[in-house]
């Protein structure tokens, strides 16, 4: 601390919230680990690619969802370009879930919560649950007979757990807003936390190499 120049100390007292926040941001991930260009040799396996494949699929989901929001339901039901973007949205969601579940299997069988990585696992699990909610409200937002049918079936389940008054699956406006605003924000935020945690702790060593931790 004594090496800090005098002027610096005068302008930025150590107890300012700016300083505290900067320290917090800088120390969240070890130096050089935010975007590393090298990884331990055990990361050289296809199973480690599934996290980033999930991320890539999620990016396509969000981008195509934004295009659907610009055009609106009348557009995606009648125009061929609308159909195409709608299909991109659906199929990138299918890939997103496929990649995510294979990623989950991989992390489960390598017990990737070892070495203080519990929060990485937990944020992953929460991302999974939030994604399921986003997909379900997506099915309710199709604005066709399919979504009408699904909502009529879903209301009994939702009512049976006692939340139908607040989360009304028969209300397409509410479901659309959960689908395009609240749940994507939740999935996005939890995904950012998940990836930052991965960078913070580094990739977990294989089980038989654990004393290297």
């Amino acid at each position, binding site marked *: 601390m004594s090496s800090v120049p005098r002027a610096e100390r005068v302008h930025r007292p150590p107890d300012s919230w700016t300083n505290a926040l900067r320290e917090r941001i800088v120390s969240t991930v070890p130096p050089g680990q935010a975007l590393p260009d090298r990884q331990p040799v055990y990361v*050289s*396996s*296809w199973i480690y690619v599934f996290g980033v494949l999930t991320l890539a699929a999620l990016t396509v989901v969000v981008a195509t969802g934004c295009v659907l929001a610009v055009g609106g339901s009348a557009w995606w039901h009648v125009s061929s370009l609308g159909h195409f973007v709608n299909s991109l949205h659906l199929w990138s969601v299918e890939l997103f879930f*496929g990649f995510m579940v*294979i990623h989950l299997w991989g992390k489960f069988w390598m017990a990737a919560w070892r070495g203080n990585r519990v929060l990485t696992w937990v944020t992953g699990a929460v991302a999974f649950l939030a994604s399921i909610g986003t997909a379900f409200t997506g099915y309710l937002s199709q604005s066709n007979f399919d979504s009408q049918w699904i909502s009529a079936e879903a209301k009994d389940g939702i009512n049976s757990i006692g939340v139908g008054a607040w989360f009304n699956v028969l209300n397409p406006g509410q479901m659309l807003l959960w689908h395009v605003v609240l749940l994507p924000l939740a999935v996005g935020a939890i995904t950012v936390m998940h990836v930052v945690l991965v960078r913070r702790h580094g990739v977990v060593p294989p089980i038989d190499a654990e004393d290297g931790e």
Partner: protein
Amino acid sequence: MVQMASVVFAPSGHVLSWGWFSIELANLLIIAAMVLLFVVALLVPFGRRHAGAPVGHRPADEGGDQS
């Protein structure tokens, strides 16, 4: 009633049943494909440098990206 229900569900795909357990064929095939992809990801070697080879031969730490 039963007949009506079967009319309503008629367009949904082939359903396989074993006792209490039943699953739509398409869903079973997708699960099988995912398990296969999982196994392939574990078995197929990754990249040019394989297990055993040193991590190395990259340009020195700074300015590594010269592509």
